[in-house]
């Protein structure tokens, strides 16, 4: 089982964010100033040891990889921001490529949304438009990421580098672009690209060319599941605030039909959801979260990945989405408990899988042969 965690690179200054959001803006800016909205609301979320890292620092990246690896995370999926020739937040990942460290698998998810004043890709005030261009622009884009695709650490499925697209429905000639990239990949010595469509919180049109779809949680559940019992409202000091039931979301995920047009689906998992650092009381937070519940639900999702999705991957939202409350990195409140939950879930999953295999093997071995494998039993 391979767990991949989404990694947000917005933990360093860039001139654009300084201009749009104020000098020194990073993801930590909003997380640090947030306040609890109601009794029991766990905010602000503070990293353990006040480690407000800068991702342009190689030591921070090494720390992340070491921590992830030691707790069973297989790799990171970095968000990749490409706006028709312009990249944003690319420095951490570029450094990973250029320096060749940390030695930890990765892949990319093209977060193809315009940057706006609203954090959810709405189009009220566009700071950075998202355009797609044509074959020439697609080729420029491909050449930009080819170095990553050729890196030995890049995660592959069926020997093809995995490339996620967040909002393929927004790409006017998506199917043509996918075909074009596959041709370019083959010209450059690859067998093609393993394109993965993100099933998230938006309309998802039928588009050919994708090898798989990944469930991006909890957004996919918000938008495309029966939401009865999911939402509640709490009266805060300022406003009415929407809260989510942690267990209802997970039950919905775990009881979802795995069938979607006969395609390959990679199941998703989420740690928590609380985007009040970004939106204040207009955001949503979650009630009923605990590391132990996360462990139990993640274990069950891994089981489903094997049994009903035929997938060796589960994508976790996320490694470090602090401003959305969904992160595995250690914090002051829970310490390393979420990472320990991942590790324990993997151990439980491995134990179950081993037991199932050894039972099915034992069923078919002749009795004398089975007994001879066990030193405690006498020969028949």
């Amino acid at each position, binding site marked *: 089982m391979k767990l991949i965690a989404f990694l947000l690179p917005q933990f360093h200054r860039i001139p654009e964010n300084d201009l749009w959001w104020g000098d020194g803006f990073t993801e930590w800016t909003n997380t640090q100033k947030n306040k609890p909205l109601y009794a029991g609301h766990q905010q602000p979320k503070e990293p353990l040891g006040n480690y407000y890292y800068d991702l342009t620092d190689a030591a921070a990246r090494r720390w992340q990889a070491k921590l992830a690896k030691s707790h069973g995370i297989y790799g990171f999926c970095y968000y990749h921001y490409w706006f028709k020739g312009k990249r944003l937040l690319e420095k951490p990942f570029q450094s990973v490529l250029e320096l060749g460290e940390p030695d930890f698998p990765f892949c990319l998810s093209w977060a193809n949304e315009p940057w706006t004043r609203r954090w*959810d890709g709405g189009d009220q005030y566009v700071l950075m438009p998202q355009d797609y261009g044509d074959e020439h622009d697609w080729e420029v884009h491909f050449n930009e990421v080819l170095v990553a695709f050729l890196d030995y650490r890049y995660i592959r499925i069926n020997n093809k580098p995995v490339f996620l697209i967040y909002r393929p429905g927004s790409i006017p000639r998506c199917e043509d672009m996918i075909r074009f990239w596959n041709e370019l990949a083959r010209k450059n010595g690859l067998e093609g690209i393993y394109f993965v469509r993100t099933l998230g919180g938006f309309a*998802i049109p039928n588009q050919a060319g994708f090898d798989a779809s990944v469930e991006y949680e909890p957004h996919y559940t918000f*938008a495309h599941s029966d939401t009865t019992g999911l*939402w509640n409202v709490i009266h805060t000091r300022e406003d009415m605030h*929407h809260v989510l039931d942690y267990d209802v979301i997970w039950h919905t995920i775990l009881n979802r*039909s795995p069938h979607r047009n006969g395609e390959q689906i990679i199941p998703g998992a989420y740690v928590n959801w609380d985007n009040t650092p970004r939106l204040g009381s207009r955001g949503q937070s979650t009630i009923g979260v605990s590391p132990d519940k996360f462990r139990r639900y993640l274990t069950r999702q891994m089981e489903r990945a094997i049994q009903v999705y035929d997938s060796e991957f589960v994508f976790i939202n996320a490694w470090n989405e602090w401003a959305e409350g969904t992160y595995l990195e250690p914090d002051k409140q829970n310490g390393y408990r979420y990472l320990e939950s991942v590790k324990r879930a993997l151990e439980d999953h491995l134990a179950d899988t081993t037991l199932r295999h050894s039972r099915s093997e034992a069923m078919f071995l002749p009795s004398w042969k089975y007994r001879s494998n066990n030193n405690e039993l006498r020969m028949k």
Partner: protein
Amino acid sequence: MKNKWKRTTSKTRKTLRFVKKKRSKGMSKKQKSPVMQDQRIQVHPPAEAPVTVEAQPRHILVPVLQHIYVDDKHRRKLMDRKKLRILVVTPFTNTMDMQMEPLITEPLRILVQEVVVLKTYEQVPTVLSQMNPDLLLIICQEEPMSDELLITIQQTSVKTALWNVGDHFVVDSIRHMVPYFDVVFTQNIMNIPIYQHLGCKNAVYLPLTADRTMYSPKITNKPFQSDLLLIGDYYPYRQEHLDTIQQISELKKIFVLGEDWEANERIILIEKDQDLQAYYNGANIIVNWKSIQQQVFEAAACGAFQLVEENPNLSAFMLPGEDVVTFRTPQEMRDQLRLYLDQPELKRKVASKALWRSHYDYSSLHMAMRLLDGMFGI
């Protein structure tokens, strides 16, 4: 802290007074603050969340969070049920039918004190008199019963029920047995007037559910995968449906489970006695003309999306538009096929609801509870 009271705001003092008042009425001290609990109401998703397209009007539920508690009447109901002793007779001769037994007896064992199972009619008179159960439940398809046994059943003071598990049509052997029982449970709601006419006043619609050890979401291999699975026999009126289906180019590979269809380059006939769960799991869409509710439940338990021809058996348990989609005419079927082929998330939502409800609303445990409710009012 000395000045603790002075430091609290007037709003907080109001909250604390509210909590004290509630506590004085005997509520648990472990309950959360009123802000967390009493002021929570359930609403639809906030405006920021994307809105999905609705194909059919669905039940608009605006549930209000309620305090859930068990009153004395409910507690007595549960205790009375657990005192019951049931004698079940399953005289199946067909091995396929024998699989039904645990589907019925296992959930009954959870609910009642004792379930004794006999597999032949011959043992019934002896065990009936020795055990003196609260209920004699005969589960059969067509297995005829002797007149002597029928008279014994008629004369016993024990409550008696016949659960006919194969009654798409009412066969002669069953017609003969019906008048001797207090209650007849049927798979087909349209047979109720027949049973009443035959002399059994209490006929209740109670379909078998899916055996979830067999029917559940599973990975399927390519030979079992299809764009469309049709369930039902061929009748001339269904030719128009078939013509409509064949006009939809996305439906390239069509499996058919039923009699009298002709195969062609797109249509593949499924032989009898196949592993149906593989076909249910492999089908992108299922179109079902048959009114056998258990088959609909089985596909639901696999997480399959179904278009079912409207029939009275369906609506007693399922919610058209939510966990199943219904049609009446070939045009309606075509429109629904088009809609759900174009909206895979909507299709998945309906299939997921069906899967959810097969666990929590129409499982074998729920049917066992309905049976007891029908017999004893508990």
